[in-house]
């Protein structure tokens, strides 16, 4: 669900506070169309916001693609099926 509408940026030179507030939500695809326009406009004119955007985007991609998934124990699926079978039998008795 999109977050509430924000005001347009007014402080590009200092880094746009409104833009920075919703930047991560924008990257996550959780902003409204109006907010998207506001952020996109800000990213075109504000170096600070653009830098934050690139950093947050890289962070999210790093987490998503660089962290190895743990190896699932070979016997886990079988353990679950065995326990479900027992649960099923006790449930139907």
């Amino acid at each position: 669900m999109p977050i509430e509408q924000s005001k347009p940026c007014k402080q590009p030179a200092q880094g746009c506070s409104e833009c920075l507030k919703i930047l991560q939500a924008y990257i996550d695809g959780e902003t409204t169309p109006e907010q998207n326009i506001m952020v996109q406009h800000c990213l075109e004119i504000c170096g600070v916001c653009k830098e934050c955007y690139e950093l947050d985007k890289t962070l999210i991609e790093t987490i998503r693609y660089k962290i190895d998934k743990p190896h699932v124990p070979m016997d886990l699926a079988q353990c679950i099926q065995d326990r479900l079978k027992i649960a099923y039998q006790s449930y139907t008795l």
Partner: protein
Amino acid sequence: MTEISYALTNNMEELTPQVYTDIELAQLFNKEFLPLLDSAYNFAFRLTLDEDDAKDLVQDTYLKAYRFIHSFQKGTNAKAWLFRILKNSFINDYRKRIKEPAKVDYQDVETIYNSEDAEADNITTDLRVEVLQDMIGDEVANALNSLAVDFRTVIILCDIEGFTYEEMAKILDIPIGTVRSRLHRARNILKEKLENYVKRR
């Protein structure tokens, strides 16, 4: 924990209990839930940080899913439903007895409770894109694992498992605004930790 708490509804209103035949039940588990095993184990491992605990937690989760299957509405989000059970099981059963008590970073906790405006606390960081791109997965994983569990959880759900804010709100039973602010803070703290990691190299 009550049975209805497994229903994925925001207002906790009671849903009509679902009735499944034996065949439907078997199909449901084989088609909907068992294919989620890798994701469930990954989530469990990131929560417990222990292989044996993660294995036990996933098994318990599936047994509870079976036990409370009548609260699962067919055609709804099976992954979110299963993850909600897993998260609740972790809080109720495992968090109390995991070998290493919840790692509390007091700076993290202070950040949670001392600031009302979630998005206002943009932690300034000197971390740069190129440095982040050069980091290896283990460094990022270690930094993630060092976060307080509530922060770790939102990052796992969003950035690794790809849940939307709305789905996360239902899994965690918190408002969407809290999801947004917690995630924002979690990522900012993670950036700070990664920056410290780089400085210590």
